[in-house]
Every structure is written in C-alpha cells, then in structure tokens.
C-alpha cells in the first residue's frame, strides 16, 4: 500500500463506544485511510477502506463515517489540508445506481423520470392485462362469476316471468361454445344491460321497453355474449389493478397496494368498457347473429332505438358506459351490407314468447306520462 498523503494537522475522531472525541492523525493511502491516536501511549495505525466510507457535508465541515454501521466517524473541517483529496477518494468509490444518478443534472433527471414513467405506464397498461388473463382458467372464471352474480344482484328484483320468456326466445340462439350463457331480466326502468365474467348477462327491463323487434334482443345478447367470450370484464379488471399498482409506485404510496385490492373488489358492478372492447363486442356480436341466421341489421336498429331513449329521461346509464356513437352505427351498417342475404324468420313459439315479453314491457311511447 502506497502512502499518498499525510499531515500533522489532527482531526476529531469518534470511535463509537462513547461520545467523546479523540485527536487523531490522518493519512491517505491508495484505497484506505489510516488513523493514529495522538494522545495514546500506543500509536497503532487503524485502517479504513474508502469503499466502506461515506460522508455528509454540513456547512464548514464534513463528517466521514468510516464503517457501514455509521458507528465511528471523523470530523474534517474544510480548511484541513487533506479535505479535498479525502472527499475525491471516497466519492470515486461510490458506485451505486443511486449515487450515479444523483450526481446528474436535476432538469435532465426530471425529464428522464417523466419519459420513463410514461413508457412504463404505457407498456404495463398494454401488455400486463392480456398476459394475466391467460393465467385464469375458464372453469375458475365461471365459478367466480357465479359468486359475483349472486352478490351483485342481491339487491335487485329479478323478473322470473320475463327471464323465462327470454330463455324461450333464445332457445335456439347459440352464443358461446365455452361459457354457459345465462340471461336474467331485472325489473328496473334504467336502460341498462351488462355481462359478468363466466356467462351471466343481466338485462334491465328498461332496455326491453326500448326495443321494437326481436332481432334487437338478439343483437344485444350477441354484444354482451362477446364481452363474456372475449373475457372483457376480466381484462378491464386486470387493467385497473395494473394501472393503479403502477400509479401507486409513482406516488410511492404503498398503502396503494392494499387499497388497490380492496378498491377493485366491488368494481365489476360499474364496469365501463373501453371503446375498443365495445367495437369488438359489436362486430363479434353481429357474427353471432349471422351464425344463428339472424339479420345483423338488428344491431343497427338496437343502437338507433337506444339513441332515441337519450332524450327520454335521466335513466340511460347503459348509454353512459356504452355510448352509441355515429361510428358504431355506421360500422354496424357496413357489416350488415357486407353480410346481406336471407335470414330465417323467428319460429312461432319464439315469436309468441317475444310478443308476451313486449306485453310485459311495452314501448314507453305507448304509455306516455
């Protein structure tokens, strides 16, 4: 070990066993510093490698901690002859990521941070939920969906007569090969319908009131069944969990992890699907209609009927989560034109059931207030 510098100028050393300072002589070597007690009978040299040292500069002096435990330290005033040399030797040994970044310019750091945050949020949002969805088996999803269905509808009044009629109408309408689709009609004037993971579709009576033709019902069910088949609600839920986790990192709020889990438990009831998922549900829904020989134009009719209810009253929560845009209407028209042909008319039994259903929930225009 080569001696780089030494000085007779003493500095104060706190050895960690008591709070009293000792005067020591400081010498700097290649990769360690050494101390010698000045008042001791036995002037033994003690070595401390720079890699173990760190320092804090406060006003006119620097506190050099000599061990990772911070037990012992040296107080070196700015005027000390070895001050600069000592600091440069210690800081060249600091190689952690934190130290490297901390030495960079503040503005550059800020933009690096913004860029990284945006990139991670975007990539996480795009890739994590579709990957996670693959890990959840269909059977589990169905079981889980049943539980959610029970708790979600515990405060709703199910219209069993209407539910039976819908079951009759859709007897030959196959919507899913993977999931047992079960439709329930809820007695509620809100224009609303939603699908749950695993196969439950809930229709509010308000939306039946808005319909004029059975094809519109088939269109609605095709649309909702697509949400089930494509596991949209699961995807949405995982997206929300992912994004709130990523956001909790940004705010360094680790309670976020706990509240993320709690906050998402009741999320399913107010699921709003994204536009991309809605568009997918529209055209895949129309495919289901074609496979069942139902005229896909029913989708367009349904959208137009729903749009008309906008002005009716305040009860259009379905439209809030499923906004009927011009795009959606024109897309569905385009689809119908491309798939024009002859379609089966409804068998008598089903037609009767439809009429009975409309008897229960006639169009609002006929029952004007």
């Amino acid at each position, binding site marked *: 070990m080569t001696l780089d510098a030494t000085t007779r100028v003493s500095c104060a050393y706190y050895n960690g066993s008591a709070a009293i300072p000792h005067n020591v002589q400081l010498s700097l070597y290649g990769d360690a510093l050494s101390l010698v007690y000045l008042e001791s009978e036995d002037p033994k040299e003690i070595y401390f490698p720079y890699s173990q040292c760190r320092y804090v500069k*406060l006003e006119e002096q620097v506190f050099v901690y000599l061990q990772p435990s*911070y037990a012992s330290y040296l107080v070196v005033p700015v005027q000390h002859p070895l001050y600069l040399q000592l600091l440069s030797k210690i800081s060249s040994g600091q190689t952690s990521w*934190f130290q490297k*970044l901390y030495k960079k310019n503040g503005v550059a750091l800020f933009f690096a941070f913004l860029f990284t*945050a945006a990139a991670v949020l975007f990539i996480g949002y795009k890739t994590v939920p579709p990957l996670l969805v693959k890990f959840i088996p269909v059977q589990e999803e169905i079981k889980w969906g049943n539980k959610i269905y029970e708790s979600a509808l515990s405060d709703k009044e199910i219209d069993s007569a209407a539910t039976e009629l819908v079951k009759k109408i859709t007897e030959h309408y196959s919507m899913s090969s993977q999931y047992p689709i079960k439709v329930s009609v809820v007695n509620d004037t809100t224009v609303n319908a939603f699908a749950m993971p695993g196969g439950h579709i809930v229709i509010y009576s308000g939306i039946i009131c808005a319909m004029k033709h059975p094809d519109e019902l088939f269109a609605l069910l095709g649309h909702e069944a697509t949400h089930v088949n494509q596991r949209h609600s699961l995807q949405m839920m995982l997206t929300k969990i992912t994004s709130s986790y990523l956001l909790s*990192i940004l705010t*360094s709020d680790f*309670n976020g992890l706990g509240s993320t889990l709690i906050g998402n438990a009741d999320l399913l009831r107010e699921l709003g699907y994204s536009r991309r998922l809605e568009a997918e549900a529209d055209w895949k829904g129309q495919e289901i209609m074609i496979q069942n020989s139902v005229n896909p134009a029913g989708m367009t009719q349904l959208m137009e009927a729903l749009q008309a209810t906008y002005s009716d009253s305040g009860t259009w929560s379905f439209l809030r989560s499923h906004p009927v845009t011009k795009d959606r209407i024109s897309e569905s028209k385009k689809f119908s034109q491309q798939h024009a042909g002859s379609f089966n008319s409804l068998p008598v039994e089903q037609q009767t059931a439809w009429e009975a259903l409309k008897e229960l929930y006639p169009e609002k225009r006929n029952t004007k207030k």
Partner: protein
Amino acid sequence: MQYALRFLGKGFELFKIQLVNLLLQIVTLGLYYPWAKANTLQYLYSHTTLQDHPFAFTGTGKQMFKGFIKALLLMAIIFALAFFITFKFEPIWGILTLYLFLFLLMPLAIHGSYRYRMANTRWKGIRFGYTGDRQELIKLFFSGILLTIITFGIYGPWFYMKLRTYIIENVRMGDARFSYSGKGGDFFVMNLAGYFLSIFTLGIYIFWWQRDIFRFFINNTRMHRNDQLVSFTATATAGGFFSLLIGNFFIVLFTLGLGIPWAITRSLTFVANNIAIEGNISLDELEQQQEEFTDATGDDMADMLDFGFII
C-alpha cells in the same frame, strides 16, 4: 446548558433524491422502494444536527427489503384468507376477517417499527434504542381500543397519551432515557377547546390549536441520565404555524405536488428551530448501551398499514 437542534436539509436536494428514487422504483416496478426509503431517511437524519453533530440512520435498503418481502407475504396471506372466506361463506365475514387481522397487526407494527428505527439511529456514534415489551404494548393497545369503543371515543385522548407515554418512556439514547408526562385529561380539554374555537372563528383558531398540540407534545418530554435532566420547550407561535402551513399549502398547490420536498424541509426546519433544549446532561459522556436490531418487518408493515411514526 443549552443544546442546539438544527435541520440543514435543502428542498432541492430532497427533490433530487426523491426523483432518483422514483426513477429507480419505476424501472424496478416498485421493488426499489426499501432502498428509496433508506436514501430519504439517511438524508433527513444526516441533515439534522444536535450540538452541530448530525444524526445517522444506519438502516439499509437490504434490511428493509427483507422486511418488505416478509410484510408483503403476511399481507398476501391475510388478503388470500379474506378472499377465500368471502367466496366460501359470506362477504361480510371476509371483510371482518380482513379488518380484524389488519387491526391485530397494528401494535406489532408499532413495536417492530420503533425497535428498528431506534436501533438504527445514531448520534455521535451512540445508538438509540427502544426497550418496550411487545406483550405489554399489545395489552395496552387492545384494552385502549376496547375502552375507546365502549365510551364512544371519549377515552381516545387518554388512550393516545397512554400509548405515547409508553413508547417515549421506552426510548433510549445510549444510557439516557426519555419520559413523557402529557395526561389524557389535559389533551382532551385542549382539543375540545381547539375544536370549538376553530369552528367559532371559522378556522382561524386552527393555528393556535396547532401551536398548543406542538407545545403539549414537546414540553411534556424530558430526557434523563442518572439524576441529570434535559427539558424540551416549544417556542413555536401561532403566527409561525400560519406561515408554515399556508406557505406549504401554496407551494404544493402551485407546483402540482412537485414542491412536496420543499414543504417537508420547511416543516422540519420549523420543528427544529422551535424546540429549545436545556439541561445538565453532558452529552459527551453518553455511553453505548443499546443493542443492534436489523429486522425491518415491523417498519415495513407500518408503511403498508399507512401510519407514520408516532413521535
């Protein structure tokens, strides 16, 4: 003699530390959190000085990462159990289980957190310590909670003061110990008055109320070594609290939260500048007496349960 307590941290430096912390946390998807916490605590401790010597936080990211993983596993088990019960039985039982367990964890988190933080705080090389007993804290905690519930919250201030007394009286600085003499009744009356006066004055009294709380906490704390004594006196005024709180409010508001580090350093400077310390303990004679303690599980748990350090 008088002792000088100062905080020398700068808002911009803290801002940079937190920026680097966030950057590394994002890249590691949050796993850097324990190291980030260590970086921040090390900065804040090392820029707080007593008699011109800084405090040191000796905890490391590695220790806190281990604690973090343990605390995370524990939380995961509790959540899994709660979900299991929700789906197997009634949702209400699941939620009750969740809150029951989180509740049970609270005294454990307080105990672990104090042991870890104190054992990893040094001043002039002398270690702090927390000598509280876990069983006793659990008993004190749950009997206090029970009484608070039975009395519809009226016992709350007494409970809070008992807890504070227990914790502070078990804090050691080398071979010196602390004591706390704030009584529940005084705390209750002070807060009751503060509450109603704040309402009557449309909130203006809040700054006086803050000053009173600060005074109550600081003036009731003492440090003892053998028969020597150090007392603490709050010198903060309502005007001081006004400019601190209003200033912080606008700093955070107009910077959309980016100014939080400045609000933190302003607050710590305010606290340090407004505590006068006087007594006859010779701090140079403090002796190393407290043990090492490196299990950070309790400290990480306290973070997850989202309650800060009480002192």
